């Protein structure tokens, strides 16, 4: 089946991103297609490469980046939610006059339409949040 996964919470504060990651990984291992992982609300905070968790803890952000690289995943951060919370890529930095970017590898910033499209194109939408 073709799946879209939605993540509504940031890393560490809430288990949502962990649950979404383990679910997504299991779905890939079973041979399902992940059409897209869409990060919304505080979930956009999963996409900053500037996190530095302690050595003995999992790196939630890097884990998503690695999974994306391995499986060519489409990790999409909602632009409206990202602008509010300061997740910035090159394009956003240029458009909004920011002096830095912080987006993690494998993530891209795009519109809410990407979530809607996920709902239309996928067989199932699975939402993880608070």
């Amino acid at each position, binding site marked *: 089946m073709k*799946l879209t996964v939605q993540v509504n919470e940031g890393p560490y504060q809430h*288990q949502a991103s962990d649950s979404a990651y383990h679910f997504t990984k299991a779905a890939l291992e079973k041979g399902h297609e992940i059409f897209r992982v869409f990060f919304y609300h505080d979930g956009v905070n999963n996409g900053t490469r500037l996190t530095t968790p302690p050595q003995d803890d999992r790196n939630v952000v890097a884990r998503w980046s690695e999974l994306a690289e391995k499986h060519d995943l489409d990790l999409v951060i909602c632009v409206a939610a990202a602008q509010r919370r300061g997740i910035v890529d090159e394009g956003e930095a240029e458009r909004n006059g920011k002096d830095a970017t912080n987006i993690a590898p494998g993530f891209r910033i795009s519109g809410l339409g990407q979530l809607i499209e996920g709902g239309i194109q996928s067989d*199932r939408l699975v939402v*993880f*949040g*608070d």
Partner: protein
Amino acid sequence: MSILHIVNKSPYERNSVALAVDYMRDGDTLLLIEDAVYTVMQGGKAASIIDGQKAVVLGPDLAARGIAKEKMIDGVEVVDYAGFVDLVEASDKTQSWL
């Protein structure tokens, strides 16, 4: 069309488990993840909420919280993340009671 109702809240903190059960129809399944796994603890007041329902609980979340098999009420199936994926596939859609 069948729904996989996913709940992640402790039944002692929020009403989500009870509400999801209210919304269950024939053929639907209840999946308890994250803090909702406390629902299945023997002797807990909340266990009765899922009496007679088709309820499944996520094993890794149970284990993380120290809930051993023998501390669980009867009649609840335990799955891993692969089983979670199978449940999503077996239902027509999912509803997360966040």
